[in-house]
């Protein structure tokens, strides 16, 4: 039995036993290479689940949907390691109760897809894997190329990209970590971040979002894929992730009990830049 | 240009109730005033603004019979209204309008008028009330039913006194149970209940009803009981607006653009709208 069939029947069993009220997985998309989030409430609907190498979205973003888990019932969700990492972060930030999430884990290696052992978040120990995980070479190369630029060139690079931003907030909406009920950009007394999508306002927005994700990003790449104007958000998020590892030896989402990096400190944190 | 407002000078500011103020504004430019005089009819609204904060939509609370100035009454709640609440006489604010449709008061001529308002919704009603009272001879009996949560929340207290003293106006005042003060002489009870007790005749009568959605809902039931038809009940709707001229796309309820086709509707028209969108 392939993993798809295995998970279909497992999802169906979870639903028919009443253990979960909902299973969030993938279904066929509008084209052959697309998969779309699919929500199954009945065992029959669970037969529509698809699981293959095209299932790359991080479905954990739906777990923080307003009201979804407020009834205390459980939800099952198909997650890759980056999604499991997101769940860890969400739990550590008190946005999820670990026992409310049943994880149907899988990993994709090129076209190969394998099931991950475990159903509860505590069954997954990702620490080693996350730390040893290197981002795809194209991200590393791009990031390196930017690091090698001088500040003025770097500014021009981002100016060109941020000038395209239309403030559709797709990056925010698909991000599991952007769960604020009212985002800073939607707060208007005072209006800290300008809502206008001119280049200056776009710098503001993208910098603030990157900062808010520093040490919280699971590197799932959802924002980058969602961006309709192709801003390489992966780079800035990768850079922030690298910074918290280098400076604080902190890797977001290793487990669900770590303290958020910017909400904690060590007395001997590095401070070479402070006079 | 389409989104350019008129500069307005604040003549006076009057505190009406906790968090509620009335501004009296006069036109800075004569041509703007001329435009207003030609176009303003009771029921229309405007976008009141202050540069640096933005614009906020509320009705013109002054009647079409008094067009030398604009009065607006608003509750301080968001970014714009909080700033507007802090202006002083002599300050410059802006006004864009008048927009929207109006109460067809010439069709009300020769009829009895029943005005029902709740809380901060007296201002739009007051615009019609004075528009009619200023031509009192054209209308028959005038009844005003007005209620607020507490005595302090009643707005236009001076005018309430004035209406009370007039013998050609029947004023029924009420506050919600618990909102009365020891010296309160008028009714205690919700508007629909008090309205039913006051029992104005539906015969040849037009009702103008403004208030929060929940009050409207129950008052419509009361009016129905009294024998009013939905076609003879007028009300105003409000929604968040930015342009005021049917472009920005946020104020519609079903297919109806409140800013262009409203804000004045008969209860029958409101009932025809998708209720889930209100």
């Amino acid at each position, binding site marked *: 039995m392939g993993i798809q069939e295995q998970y279909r029947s497992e999802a169906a069993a979870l639903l028919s036993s009443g253990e979960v009220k909902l299973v969030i997985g993938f279904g066929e998309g509008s084209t052959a290479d697309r998969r779309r989030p699919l929500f199954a409430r009945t065992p029959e609907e669970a037969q529509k689940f698809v699981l293959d190498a095209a299932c790359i979205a991080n479905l954990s973003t739906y777990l923080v949907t307003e009201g979804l888990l407020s009834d205390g019932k459980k939800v099952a969700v198909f997650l890759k390691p980056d999604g499991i990492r997101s769940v860890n972060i969400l739990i550590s930030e008190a946005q999820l109760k670990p026992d409310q999430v049943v994880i149907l884990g899988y990993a994709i290696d090129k076209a190969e897809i394998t099931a991950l052992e475990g159903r509860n978040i505590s069954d997954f120990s990702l620490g080693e894997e996350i730390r040893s995980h290197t981002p795809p070479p194209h991200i590393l190369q791009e990031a390196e190329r930017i690091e090698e630029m001088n500040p003025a060139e770097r500014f021009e690079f981002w100016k060109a990209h941020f000038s395209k931003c239309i403030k559709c907030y797709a990056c925010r909406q698909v991000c599991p970590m952007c769960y604020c009920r009212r985002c800073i950009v939607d707060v208007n007394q005072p209006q800290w971040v300008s*809502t206008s999508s001119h280049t200056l306002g776009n710098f503001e927005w993208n910098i603030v979002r990157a900062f808010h994700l520093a040490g919280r990003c699971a590197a799932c790449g959802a924002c980058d894929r969602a961006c*309709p104007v192709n801003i390489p958000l992966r780079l800035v998020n990768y850079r922030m992730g690298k910074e918290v590892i280098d400076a604080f030896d902190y890797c977001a989402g290793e487990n669900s009990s770590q303290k958020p990096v910017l909400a904690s400190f060590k007395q001997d944190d590095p401070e070479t830049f402070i006079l | 240009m389409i989104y350019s407002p008129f500069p307005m000078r604040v003549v006076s500011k009057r505190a009406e109730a906790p968090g509620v103020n009335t501004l009296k504004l006069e036109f800075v430019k004569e041509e703007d005033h001329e435009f207003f005089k030609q176009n303003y009819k009771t029921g229309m609204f405007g976008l009141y603004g202050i540069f640096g904060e933005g614009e906020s939509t509320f009705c013109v609370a002054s009647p079409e019979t008094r067009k030398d100035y604009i009065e607006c009454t608003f509750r301080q709640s968001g970014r714009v209204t909080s700033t507007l609440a802090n202006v002083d006489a002599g300050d410059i604010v802006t006004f864009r309008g008048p927009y929207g449709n109006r109460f067809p008061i010439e069709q009300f001529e020769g009829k009895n008028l029943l005005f029902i308002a709740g809380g901060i919704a007296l201002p739009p009603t007051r615009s019609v009330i004075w528009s009619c009272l200023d031509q009192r001879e054209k209308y028959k009996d005038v009844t005003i039913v007005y209620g607020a949560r507490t005595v302090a929340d009643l707005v236009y207290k001076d005018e309430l006194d004035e209406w009370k003293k007039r013998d050609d106006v029947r004023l029924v005042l009420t506050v919600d149970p618990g909102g009365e003060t020891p010296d309160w002489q008028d009714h205690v009870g919700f508007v629909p209940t008090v309205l039913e007790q006051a029992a104005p005749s539906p015969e040849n009568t037009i009702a103008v009803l403004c208030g929060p959605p929940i009050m409207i809902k129950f008052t419509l039931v009361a009016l129905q009981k009294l024998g009013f038809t939905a076609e003879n009940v007028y009300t105003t709707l409000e929604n968040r607006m930015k342009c005021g001229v049917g472009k920005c796309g946020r104020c519609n309820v079903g297919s109806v653009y409140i800013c262009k086709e409203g804000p004045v509707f008969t209860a029958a028209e409101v009932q025809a709208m998708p209720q889930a969108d209100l």
Partner: protein
Amino acid sequence: MTRILLRNKLDDCIAAWQKAGFSVFAPVRQHEMSSFGEVQKASDMAFDLVLPERTIKDHFFPQTEPLIKYKIGKQQIDSETMTPPDRKRVFFGVRPCDASGLAIDDPLFGWDYKDDYWFRRRDNSVIVTIVCTEADDFCMCTSVKLSPESDKGADVMLRPLANGAGWQVEAVSERGTALLETIPSLLQENSEPTAPVPQVAEKFDLEKVMEWLASKENFESQFWKDISLRCVGCGSCTFLCPTCHCFDIQDEGDTYAGIRRKNWDSCSFSLFTMHTSGHNPRNTQSTRWRQRIMHKFNYYRGKFGVNSCSGCGRCTRQCPVDMGITETLQAISNLPR
């Protein structure tokens, strides 16, 4: 015999238009994104695109537009109305769906109150469309009763020649005729065959969809909740839509000075309709998605006689969760009667 414009004459053509006072815009690829941008020569243009990612709407209803510049002094407030640049523009290589989008929005921006910002740009622009030779999986113009060779919104229509050497040229408006008069020597008589127009299959039964939408009892149908379950509530479908026209007006600046701006806004955002009191008439994603579909295929039609969709398919093409108008209308179309 018809007139044709050869591809190798395009540089001369641009030069001639520039000489006649036009700025020339065409699909370009810049910084990993395709959009309409100003071009100086033919090689700046990106001809291989089925459709640029960004619409031509950007150039008529920009994402952020200054309306009024103000200065707040101690004694007085000065304000100055800002107007769009008054320049003549040619848009070359517009797809019929994008051009239709402009025509669809005209009545809205002219509805009693004329939006000067839109019309000043419209009046100064000439739209040169190129009939499609290719369609992708998301194209749906035929489903909304337009076509890859529709001339709606166009001033000049070009049909690619089968040999790829150029385009057959046809003026479809007075403005288009006037534009062609600036390049008479660059056009030649020729009867080369034109490339075939792609067959874009109809993806739903529009009549049936409109009928379903018009029926009052469907307004609160469970359908809306089910179909929009995965919508994450971003604004990318609305911002990349050639006909979506909703906007916000915001003052931006500091204590002393600033600019009142007209910014794109989206019916997908929860704050779009939220009252200051906290009451929100459209407080769930399903009601917002319903609004978008109803507005496009019911309300707009009732007011202005056309559907507010030109079938470009961008909403589906770039949706992060693979939603879009096509899927919803297909689903409505497939509902049992």
